[in-house]
Each structure stands twice: as C-alpha cells, then as structure tokens.
C-alpha cells in the first residue's frame, strides 16, 4: 500500500472538511465503543483474561524463534507448505510464485491487514491473477479503489448511499438504501467467485504452535468458504501471531471479539489444520502459509517489543477521539488509530511516518481498552523522543523548546516575562481572551480564544502578601 503517513496534517484537515466522511464516522465509531463497553461489563473475568492474554503474548515474544519453529514443524507435518518472507518484496515474489505454480487465475480473499502491508493484490495481479475481496467491507472498497480505513471495518468511512452508487456502477444493481439488500447483492456476486476460484487467500488471527493450525475469527462466513471451497488455501500471517498451545486459544477468543465488536464470540471461528485428509468432507487439497517478518524481528529486538502483542481488535481505534475525528485514511498507511501511530513508524521507518506519533493528545483511552495491555501512550512518547534524536524535528520546534527551557531555568526571568506579558495582555485585551495569535499559535485561535496573561501572576501576589521567603 502506498505510504502517505507524513501528510497526516494535510490528510486530517481534508477529512475534517469531508461531510460524508464525518457523517459516516459519526454514525459508526461511537457504536463500536458502546458495544465493546457493554460486552466487557457483562464479562466479569475480562480483566483477569486480559492479564493472562498479555502474559501469554509476552512469553511468545520472549521465545518467538522456538514457538515459530514448532509451528512450522507441526504445520509441515500436516501437509502445509510454509514460506517465510523477510520483507514485502520477497513476500510479493513468493505469493506470485505460489499462484503461478498452482495454476491459479482467480483468487478469493478474506480480510487480511498483513496482506495490505505487502500490497498482495497488486503482486498477484502482476502475475496475471484476479483477486476478489470477499469480506463485504473489503469488497466495497475494492470496487471504490480505496484502502481500508479501519482494521476490522474497512469500509467504515462509506455511507450506504455511496455503497449503493458503487454497486450500481460496478455490478449493475438498482439503487437502494436498504442494507440487507446491499448485502444480498454482494453475496450474489461473490457466490459465483467462490465457486470458480482456484485459490482462497486468508489472513490469520492466531497460529497455534502445538498443532500447526491457522485460526480465523470472522463474522461473515467468507473466510470459511474461502478456506474450504477452492483447491488451494494461502494464509498470509505475521510471525508474531503465533501462540504456544491450542489450550491458549480460548483466552484469546474471550477477549478478541468482545474488544473488536462487542460480541461474546464471533459468528465464525475457523481452525484450519493442514490439507484435506482422507475422509474429510471438505478442505483445501493444497495449503500454503506465508509468514511475514517485514520488520517484525527488528521490532522484537528493541524497546517497542510489546507492540507485537497486538491482536488487531481495533478497540484502540474505536476509543481514540483523534481517530473518531478524522478516520483511518488520514494515517496514510495500512494501520490507523493509536496502533497505527506506533506500528507504522516501526514498520516503515520513523523518518517516513514521524507525523503519526504526534497525532495523539496522549489521553490514554487506547491503553484503557487494549486487551493485551500494550502501553500505547508510552510508546507514542518514546517515538517522539526518537524523532528528536534522529533529527526529525523542525528547527523551529527545537529552538522554541530550547528557549522555553532556558526561561524555565530561572524563576526570575520567567517572572519578568510574565510581567511584560501581563501588562501587554491587559492593555490589549482588557483581561478578556485573545482572539487571534500569530503563527505557530494561529491554529489555536481559529475557533477558540486564548487566555489573556494575568496582570499580576501568583508568584508576585504571594511575595507581596507573604514575603519573598516562600
């Protein structure tokens, strides 16, 4: 996917002015959060489960090589062919080769954010394979030629009116404002694709090390159809998705749907373990797993290791007031919201995405809801500090910070400045708020007054009343 993360400022201003987007965001984001809160409230063991999930993930990261080796061995034992890609280019190459070798011309794909990281669809199209997105949201944005704007609800930025127009134009369907009718149209169109596709492509929510299984948590049934109907199944999954044992899976199934959509359990949980065996009524004849490193092992070695605990539930997006204001596209890459603001710079390099860690008020709502307890605000702060150390701050900001720190070193100097500001402030504003400030403060006063400095600061008042001793 094309990277545009450093344009966050411009992207977000555009998003704020987009009335349709604002309407779509207003309709949906609050609902996700309300559903999540209700589901968590109805599950008293949530906190304990969250703690356990976090602990399991930490153990996985501490022994990732061991668990991955076990997973690969178990998967291969069951007839799965496992590939490992170091970076996006290699992943694209491997994916195209698999499709070519398997003689595939049409692939149906269920939702996978990892596949977006490597521009999977473009890679297969380059190899002459048509890829049809089968998740409803992904299907919609594929027709629109757009990227997902949310981890689990990729078309959350679209209104039903826009979707109806897309279906009219691309599928020849009559206009409608009924959601069930729109779903019916997509289903009819996709059914034919499922039946004729040579390969089903999926992501993977979990890789179970002791059984070599890929676990898919979905709601629409497209993941299930795509992994049992076509002759070949290809799962594209990040290496950090491994969990040690099948016995650990229930812990994650308890927190993931609740955090994602407020469901106690998703409509489908598919556990795909190897190719079809003799006597199996269904399942792929050939199965490939493409494991993506793509920067993950580098993250594992550093101070941001815990970001790899992420289960992609998107609860942090739904809780984030910044995400809710601008939507996912403003973040300019695959992942958006607080997880995107941390993960994108780590995966693509901080110089390419230094604007993202600044896209947060550090309010902490994300950390409150994260089901695996990733310290997102701490990581945002850490990345901002890295940006300074890597020379990515503007000279203006550094000069301002040095000036401010210089003043704050001496209370007497601060007092003198306050005195001047107080006199000027009172003279020009008569104590009322300031309606217009020069750049770089002008943004503040576009729709807000700035406070007028006090005529007599507290320190001065205290000295007058109680003496200079403190």
């Amino acid at each position: 996917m094309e990277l545009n993360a450093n344009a966050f400022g411009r992207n977000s201003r555009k998003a704020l002015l987009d009335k349709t987007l604002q309407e779509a965001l207003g309709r949906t984001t609050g609902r996700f959060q309300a559903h999540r809160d209700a589901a968590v409230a109805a599950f008293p063991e949530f906190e304990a489960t969250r703690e356990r999930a976090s602990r399991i993930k930490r153990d996985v990261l501490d022994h990732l090589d061991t668990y991955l080796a076990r997973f690969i061995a178990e998967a291969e034992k069951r007839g799965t062919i496992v590939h490992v890609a170091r970076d996006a280019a290699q992943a694209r190459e491997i994916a195209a080769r698999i499709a070519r070798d398997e003689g595939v011309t049409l692939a149906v794909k269920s939702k996978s954010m990892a596949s977006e990281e490597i521009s999977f669809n473009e890679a297969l199209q380059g190899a002459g394979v048509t890829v049809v997105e089968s998740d409803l949201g992904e299907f919609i944005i594929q027709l629109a030629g757009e990227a997902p704007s949310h981890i689990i609800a990729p078309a959350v930025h679209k209104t039903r009116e826009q979707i109806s127009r897309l279906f009219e134009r691309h599928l020849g369907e009559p206009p409608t404002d009924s959601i069930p009718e729109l779903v019916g149209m997509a289903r009819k169109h996709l059914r034919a694709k499922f039946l004729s596709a040579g390969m089903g492509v999926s992501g993977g929510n979990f890789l179970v090390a002791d059984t070599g299984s890929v676990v898919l948590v979905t709601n629409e049934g497209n993941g299930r159809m795509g992994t049992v109907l076509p002759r070949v199944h290809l799962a594209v999954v990040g290496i950090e998705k491994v969990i040690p044992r099948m016995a650990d899976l229930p812990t994650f199934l308890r927190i993931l749907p609740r955090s994602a959509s407020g469901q106690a359990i998703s409509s489908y949980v598919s556990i795909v373990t190897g190719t079809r065996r003799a006597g199996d009524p269904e399942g792929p004849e050939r199965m490939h797993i493409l494991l993506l490193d793509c920067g993950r092992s580098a993250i594992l070695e550093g101070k941001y290791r815990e970001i790899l605990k992420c289960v992609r539930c998107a609860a942090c997006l739904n809780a984030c007031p910044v995400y809710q204001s601008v939507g996912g596209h403003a973040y300019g890459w695959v992942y958006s919201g607080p997880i995107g603001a941390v993960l994108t710079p780590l995966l693509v390099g901080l110089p390419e995405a230094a604007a993202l860690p600044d896209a947060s008020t550090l309010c902490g709502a994300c950390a409150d809801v994260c089901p695996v307890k990733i310290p997102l605000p701490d990581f945002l702060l850490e990345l901002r500090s890295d940006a300074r150390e890597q020379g990515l701050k503007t000279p203006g900001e550094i000069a301002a910070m040095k000036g401010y720190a210089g003043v704050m070193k001496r209370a007497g100097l601060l007092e003198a400045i306050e005195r001047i500001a107080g006199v000027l402030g009172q003279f020009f504003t008569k104590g009322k708020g300031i309606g217009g400030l020069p750049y770089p403060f002008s943004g503040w006063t576009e729709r807000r007054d700035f406070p007028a400095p006090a005529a007599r600061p507290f320190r001065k008042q205290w000295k007058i009343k109680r003496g200079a001793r403190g």
Partner: protein
Amino acid sequence: MPYNAGMDPKGPIPVSLFFTCLADAFSPGVCNATVEVLERFGATVRVPLSQTCCGQPAFNSGNRKEARAMARKFLLTFPDEGPIVTPSGSCAAMVKHGYPVLFRNEPRMLARARAVGDRIFELSQFLVDVLGVTDPKSDFSGKVTYHDSCHLRRGLGVVSAPRKLLRAVPGVEFVEMEESDRCCGFGGVFSLKNPQISCKMTERKVERILATGASYVTSGDLGCLLNIGGLISRFGYPVKAIHLAEILAGGTGGLSSFAADAASEDARPPGTIRRAGGR
C-alpha cells in the same frame, strides 16, 4: 495513606504548593483558591518561589533533553519531605510518571524522582484521600458539571474524589455530562500541531457540557479549562469554565482569563479572598 502516618493528626500539616506555571501566568485565582482551601483544612502552605515548570510540554513533545533540565530543577526546588500539592492532575502525573522515564539511566536522580513522585498529590486527591475531607465548607452555589481530565483520571486514577467534594457543597447542583472522561482535545503541544482536530474534539466536549444545562464546567486541570473556556468564550455560550479549587474556595467568578470583570479580582492578593469556611 503513607503520608500522615506518624504525623500529629491535630497538628499543622506542612504542605508545599506546586502552583504550576500555567496557573501562575494565566489564572492566579486558581493558586489563591488552592491556598485558601488547604489552609482551611489545617495545612501550613509553603510556596517554593524558585519553582517554574515541570517540563511536561517538552517531555510530551519528545524533547527530553529540555524536559530533563526542568525536571532536575523541579526536584531540587522542592523540599525533601512533606506532601507537595498541586491544582493540576496533569502536572502531578508528569512528576509521578514522566520523571522516572526521564531519569531511567541516572540511578540517583531516579531514586529522588520516585521519592518526590510518592509525595505529590493533586488537590482533590489530597483533600479526600489524605486529609479525609468530607465537607469542603464552601458557599459556592450553582449548577455544575465535571470534566475528567485525562491525566487526573487515567494518569493518577482520581475519579471519585472531585465528585465527592462537589456533591458535598450544599449550594452545588451537580450534574454528570455524557462522555465526561473523553479528552477535550487540548493535549498541550497537540493543540498547536493539530489545531483543527483539537478544536473538533473541543466542540464535541462543549456540546456535551451545554447539554447538561449547567452554569459551570469544572475540572482538576487548568489546561483543559483554558481550552474549553477558550471555545466557550469565542462563541459566547452560557456556561463558565471554573477550576475545582475555585468552587471549593467559594469563589463566584470562573476563570478570570476570559472575563474582563474578573480581572481586578484576579489580582487580589491571597488572604483577601472572602472566607467561605468556618460557618
């Protein structure tokens, strides 16, 4: 709490005031109100006059070198013992959680940062959890709604103390707003770097405030209040931003920064504020 363990419960309680640079420069009335309330409940207030800023804007923007310089100054400014009280959840959280990050590679400063962090309290937290105040003895009256500042609520875990105090003021009709714990959009440097998003969030906050029909919106952080108050002032909405300390002290005005009529009152030296307690 560990703090008054061993202290004579009837004797004077020595408290150091961390008045914050923001309140010093923009709303000294908040500092005066804090002193007033602390003294009302038996505290002897000391004000280290060489204090400046805790360094949060530098820390939050990733400029740790500058933040560390300010943190060092802060740690040397405040005395070695006794509680430090501040009318700001955000500044208290900075000292408590930010300083240990800044000094993680300096064991001696880290120990000092942790020790000071253990002694710092936001005003409502100190009143309720340490002094055990149940009746703030304020004659403030009006319909009030409360905004949870992010750093007070999530950083320090202070949720019920300010509400208990507000509910205990006889003249206060307390009403909860929807989404009281949702960020107001200030975020310090965020409001300068992404002012349009910041303002969008502030607008939503102000909508929720107006929906309560309250005459006052209060909070434990001046940053939020100047932000919310700035939007209220621009659009002339019929609600005033006022700091929790001012309500507890029994003031009547609201933040002086946006009100010409309060400017003179604002300059009033401490001690001349009308005593509201002792009824």
